[in-house]
Structures are given as C-alpha cells and as structure tokens.
C-alpha cells in the first residue's frame, strides 16, 4: 500500500521545470553549453567558459535525445556505466522502492524474461534510490540475476527526469539505443506485463536498433568525410526497414553515387523533389546511383515512405537514426548533395543548383559535377553553399 502510494504519487506540476531551472542555474547554463559549442562557428569569439553540465531530460521529448550518463553500483557493488555499454541496447527501468509489491512483480517479470532480453542482445538494469544493501536483500529474496542499480544520491533519477517530489524514482523505463540515444520511454509501466511490453517494443524497434548496433560496434568510427578523399561505406535501413549498404562504389557498373540529404517537411527540400527525380531519371541511365538520406530526428520511416511514394522517388531514402551519417558527412541542411566517384572518393559537396525557383536556375552545380565525374574530369566547383532547413539532430 505504501509503495503504491509512493509510486503513484504524481510529482508537482512545477517540479520538472523547477528542477531543470535549478539544474541549469546551478551549472551556469551548462545544460546548453555543450549543444551550443557543437553548433557554433567561432569567429574570434570571446571565450565562453565551459561549465559542468547538469541535464534534466524532458520525458515528453526524450526520444532521440542523448541518454544522460550514469555510473552506479549494483547489488554486488559492481559499478555499471552507460559509457561502457556503447554499442549495446540498454533497458533502464526506474522504480520507486525495493521489497514492495509492484516493484517485486516488475522485477520477477524481468527476471523471468531475462533469456529473451539476452537473445536480443539487450542489457537490462533496474534503478531505484535505495542503497546497495537494500538491493542485495531484494535480489536475494526475489532471485534477481540482473543488475539492480543503487542511485542513492538520486542524481541519475534526477537527470532522467523521473525523480518524484517524494524523493523516489517514478516507475518509468527507457530503451537506450546502441549509439546512446533514447529510443523509447514508457511512462505507463504495468508491473505485471512490463517485461512482455518491453520485449514487444524492442521487437518493433529492431531495424533501427540493429543498424545502430553495427554502426556503434565499429571500434574506430570512420572519420569525417573530406573532399577528394575516400569515403567509408555505411549501412542504413531504407524506409521499408530493409538494410541498404552504400559503399560498394563501383558495383554493377556504378560510375558515381549521389547522396541527397532530404526532408519530408522542409519546403526547400520539397521544392527540389521534382528536380531530384528528374536528375535521378537522367543520370541513373548513365550509371549513377542516387541515395536519399533522412537524418531529421522527428521524421519517421512511415512518413519517409509515404513522402517518397507521393513524389515518385526512384531512389531509396535511408533513415539515418541518430544522425550518424549526417555527422560523418557534416551535412547541415536539406537539401544537401554529395557526389562520390566509382573509386569511393568524394568529388562534390553542396547545393543542387543556384535557385530555389526552378524557372530561374542558371547554374546546375550537381549536374555539372556529375558530368565532370562521368567524363573523368576534375569538378570545377567542388564545394558550393547549400541552403535549406537545418537538419534536426539528436542531442
């Protein structure tokens, strides 16, 4: 009864913003500092001090965000750190208190399904604010074999936005993708069926998580692409869920590959749909492979598929979950184009042409680059400035 009371007690409406505010203030606006420095160009700017970061996750917009770091001891006093789990899918299940009815039900369910989680390569953790001894007793009593983490200082519960105003973690579970971003949040955990619900969710997320596993598992991430340098191959899921590898640069007589960072919603990107389709039609016949990439965090495969169908795209549009590929190519906007030759060397980066209005186009930069590559000539204008909607990244 006590546990039920505690677990169901809603936090004050103001608690999350208040905690955010406190966190941000305490860190001297440190929350923003990392994101800011990642996305600014300094032009002899005055130094802006880097301060400690205290981030509090907003549960309503957590999916796609970077999962807050943690390093907590389990029932055996062994420390588990999120940083050490890169490349693995992680379930992080917060619960209010050890040795209570709802939490015992949830823990038993997760314990019973541990084999299923392992089969999917998923590491399960439960987290509450009680100490290691309490965890030990709870695990012994319930026969729990997976790590139960003790967040005694409540910092992890706080940073995940689940710390109730009663000082206990609320019952909220997170699925963290192999690249460290949050893939799903369950705020309506049902202790009795939670294991089953999590497994169903993991199965639904499988294509995206699998791709991320491969990307994250690479010990040395490929370097950022550079003009006139070879481009490392990559693999992403097409909007139909099928994995597509981009990187066999001369397979089946391919003479060049065009990568187009595109968007479903951006009107500038959409203003180029017809031009992209026409270019693909013309140049696919000449051995050029066209590949669309959608890196916007809010644009899901379903919408990408409908959009591609609506605009009769002849080329695949790959979902770049976690904007891994956009980061590698340092793509900033949609539309933004890249041309890679049959040896896998980057030969062009920039805009498609020089006018948003099709009727006023005077310089067809992408087309000119393709003509040069196909003719074995050096591309005259290798880098042009693309204009469009900023790619909405995670983190």
């Amino acid at each position, binding site marked *: 009864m006590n546990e039920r009371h505690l677990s169901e007690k809603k936090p004050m409406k103001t608690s999350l913003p208040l905690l955010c505010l406190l966190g*941000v203030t305490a860190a001297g*606006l440190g*929350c*923003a*500092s990392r*994101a*800011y420095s990642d*996305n*600014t*160009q*300094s*032009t*002899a*700017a*005055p130094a*802006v001090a880097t301060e400690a970061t205290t981030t509090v996750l907003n549960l309503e917009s957590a999916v796609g965000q970077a999962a807050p770091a943690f390093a907590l001891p389990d029932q055996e006093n062994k420390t588990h750190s999120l940083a050490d789990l890169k490349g693995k899918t992680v379930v992080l299940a917060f619960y209010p208190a050890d040795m209570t009815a709802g939490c015992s039900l949830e823990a038993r369910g997760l314990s019973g399904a541990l084999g299923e989680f392992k089969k999917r390569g998923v590491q399960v953790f439960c987290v509450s604010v009680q100490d290691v001894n309490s965890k030990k007793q709870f695990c012994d009593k319930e026969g729990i074999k997976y790590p139960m983490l003790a967040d005694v200082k409540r910092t992890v519960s706080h940073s995940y936005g689940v710390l109730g105003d009663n000082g206990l973690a609320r019952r909220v579970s997170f699925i963290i993708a192999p690249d460290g971003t949050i893939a799903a949040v369950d705020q309506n955990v049902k202790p009795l069926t939670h294991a089953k619900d999590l497994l169903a969710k993991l199965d639904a997320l499988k294509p995206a998580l699998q791709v991320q596993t491969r990307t994250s598992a690479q010990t040395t991430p490929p370097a950022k692409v550079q003009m006139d340098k070879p481009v490392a191959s990559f693999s992403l899921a097409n909007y139909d869920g099928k994995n597509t590898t981009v990187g066999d640069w001369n397979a089946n007589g391919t003479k060049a590959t065009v990568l187009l960072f595109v968007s479903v*919603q*951006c*009107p*500038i990107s959409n203003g180029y749909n017809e031009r992209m389709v026409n270019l693909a039609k013309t140049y696919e016949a000449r051995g050029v492979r066209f590949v669309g990439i959608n890196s916007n965090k809010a644009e899901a495969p379903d919408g990408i598929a409908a959009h591609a169908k609506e605009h009769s795209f002849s080329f695949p549009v790959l979902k770049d979950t976690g904007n891994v590929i956009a980061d590698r190519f*340092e*793509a*900033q*906007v949609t539309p*933004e184009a890249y041309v890679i030759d049959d040896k896998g060397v980057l030969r062009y*980066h*920039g*805009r498609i042409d*020089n*006018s*948003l*209005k099709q009727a*006023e186009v005077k310089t067809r930069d992408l087309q000119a680059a393709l003509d040069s590559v196909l003719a074995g000539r050096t591309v005259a204008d290798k*880098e042009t*400035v*693309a*204009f*469009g*909607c*900023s*790619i*909405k990244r995670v983190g």
Partner: protein
Amino acid sequence: MICNRRFVWQGGALLVLAALSVSAVGTDRVVAKPAAVKAAAPAVYPVSAPALKKAIAARRGNVVLVNFWATWCVGCRKEFPDLVKLQKNYAKRGVSILYVSGDEASDRNSKVVPFLKQQGVTAPSYIIQGDVFQFIPQFDPNLKTAFGLPRTYVYDRSGKLVKVVFPEKSYAEFEKVIKPLL
C-alpha cells in the same frame, strides 16, 4: 508593376537605413518614431546583402544579432519568441536584433508580416531581396558549407562578427552568448 514595387521597396529600405543611422540605440527606438507604424502591421523591407551590412554597421555601439529565419522553418518559429523576449529584456543594455526572413518575396504580406505581428514584433525587419543563393555569398563570403535556417550572426559593440549560431537556440543559450559582450 514590378519596377514600381521594387522602387517602393528600395525607397522603404532607404528610409529604414536612414532611421537606423540616426538611431543611437536599438530597434525599439527606431520604431517608436512614426506613430503610424506602431498601430500598423510591422514593416518588412527587402534587403540586399550590402544594405544589410550597412544596417548592421549603423548599429555600432550595440550588440547586434542578425537572425535569419523563415515562416516555413520549424526551428525558426520555435526560437522566435525567445529572441523577441531577449530583445525586450536587453534593449536597454544595447542589444539589437535584426530579423531577416528567407521567405519568398511573394509570401511577405501573406505569411511574414502576420507572423511578425503575431510574435509582437513592431520594429521594421527584412526579407532577403532576390535569390538567396546570390545573397549568401555576398553576406558571408567565408561560408563554405551550408546555410541552414535558423542562423544568427552575433556582432559585438565594435561591429565585429564574433559568432554564428545555428540551428535554433533557447533564450538561455542566446543569453549566454550576449552577456560577455555587454
């Protein structure tokens, strides 16, 4: 018709530049002058890159933020209220924000002006004149990659460009940028 419209726009731009050049402070003071402007919809003037640079130079002595935005840009719409608030809170300390829309000229009256009005912007602002692909290299010749919206150029009191901020940022993030410059 086009010539006439261009003439009116250029005339309007000149008037604004004249107003900016005599203004010692920020946007607010410029707007306060003509009573008619206060009651009417915010004025939005087509601006070329050189004219925008002049407008920025005319505000020397202030910390100037030049925010490129568009009504079609989700991130721009998201950060806009924070910029309006920032201008309001920091106007007296010499912060001046110039809004430059990347919308099509044909959307000026139907989309740009209503959005600015809804956001409570009463000061004159701008819309990129002509093709954005010609405007960008003239305004930022050093840019080699991509120009995504929103994008905000930050100038110190001496008129020197100190930072380029993108994509959308929050009030706190902008505050963190301008405070060391005040």
